């Protein structure tokens, strides 16, 4: 069943634990089964299942308060914070370079895992599961404007974890040495692990 894969994938990204993910999927499937009457025929069933899963996650598996998550992401206006040269992430421009793509994918998933829950949930639903803003707003129970701002902050957090910029306004100025490329990123990783 394709939906089960999506549920498990999402649960795994939300809980970051294989056993918690299994429990979460089971709780969500049972809840969906019990409340199937609430599913509106003709609407996106996968989005509805993901909504149930997200709700169960936040009601039973939540580890962080929203306040602490906001603090973890840092204060400040999420929209006006600067990004620094991230355009040189080559794989996007040369999709045939599969190895680099894979490297990027692994790094992005690792960065995703470190994003606070509320923001991670929105990012997963948008970018992994491809839900629309309206479906995400419905799933997490907040206005579309909040979805937009959480998504923005979540992506910015991922970029930061990848070392791809998104520093404060005062660091906006770019210098040659700061040019970010996948090579530079890979070298940094090598240094960090070696």
């Amino acid at each position, binding site marked *: 069943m394709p*939906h089960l894969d999506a549920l498990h994938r999402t649960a795994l990204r939300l809980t970051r634990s294989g056993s918690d993910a299994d429990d979460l999927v089971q709780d969500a499937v049972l809840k969906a089964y019990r409340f199937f009457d609430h*599913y509106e025929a003709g609407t996106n069933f996968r989005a509805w299942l993901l909504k149930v899963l997200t709700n169960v996650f936040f009601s039973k598996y939540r580890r962080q308060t929203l306040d602490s998550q906001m603090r973890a992401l840092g204060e400040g206006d999420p929209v006006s914070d600067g990004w620094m040269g991230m355009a040189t*992430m080559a*794989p996007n421009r040369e999709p045939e370079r599969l190895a680099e*793509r894979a490297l990027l994918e692994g790094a992005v998933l690792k960065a995703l895992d470190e994003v606070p829950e509320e923001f991670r949930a929105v990012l997963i639903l948008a970018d992994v599961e491809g839900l629309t803003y309206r479906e995400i707003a419905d799933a997490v129970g907040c206005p579309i404007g909040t979805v937009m701002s959480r998504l923005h902050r979540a992506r910015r957090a991922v970029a930061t974890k990848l070392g791809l910029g998104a520093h404060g306004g005062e660091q906006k100025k770019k210098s040659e040495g700061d040019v970010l490329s996948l090579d530079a990123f890979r070298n940094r990783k090598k240094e960090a692990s070696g």
Partner: protein
Amino acid sequence: MEGCDETRRYVDAWVDGELDPGAALMVETHLARCEECREEADAIRSIKGALAASREGHAAPGSLRSRLLAALDEEDQEKASVEHATARRKHATGFLLAGAAMTTIALATGWRGSINGTGPVAGAAMMPPLLDDIAQRHARNLPVEVTGSEPTQVANFFTGRLDIPVRPVHFRGVPARLVGARISNVSDRMAAALYYEVGGRRVTVFVFDSAVLPRAFDTDGLQPVRVNNQPAYVGNARGYTVVLSERRGIAYAVASDMPASDTLGIVSQADIQ
């Protein structure tokens, strides 16, 4: 550059294709002349692309499928007591159709798919006492009280000795030999222990009151599976595989020193008369 703040407010939505044409045009006009914002849009696209690519090739574990099936069965049994059967069937049908028949796939895969490669899941820390008890009694290999290779004759030994009916258990299609039996205990209840030899390895079938069985949703260390379309649980304790199932109020525990997949293979050939 002027308009950066405004653009950043909407660039995520622009990449996501969520902007109306007017707002999209505004963003595009700015991006055409602002490199920094263009880079931000490219970064968002890169992250989005990498996350979308992570969808590929992810499959939920087979053990989860069988576990869900057992959980849904349990749910059905609970519902049956409060809901009209017809309404329940309709509900279930709708759920399955919309859900692309999750349970049907789990059924078709059967226990083979759920067990393949994964093996028993029980960890020592979560080991239920029942499982441990059964494994221990299998391991001790106490002397038999009745010998014989004819299941019906051995089963008759228990008549009047146990407060549950002990029916003969045959294994079809596997080289199983009944060695003998004795009265045993499972969780302080009297039980029949039937000793078999399968391909030179010991298999013990414990027959006892199913009241001893843990409730289906309280099965830490036990993995729900389907054997011949019947729910069963498989676990591992002290290095032994234990498969638990229930027929007509009587519990059957099959303990063996074979892997879970082989033990389930034997269980699937069991014929209780």
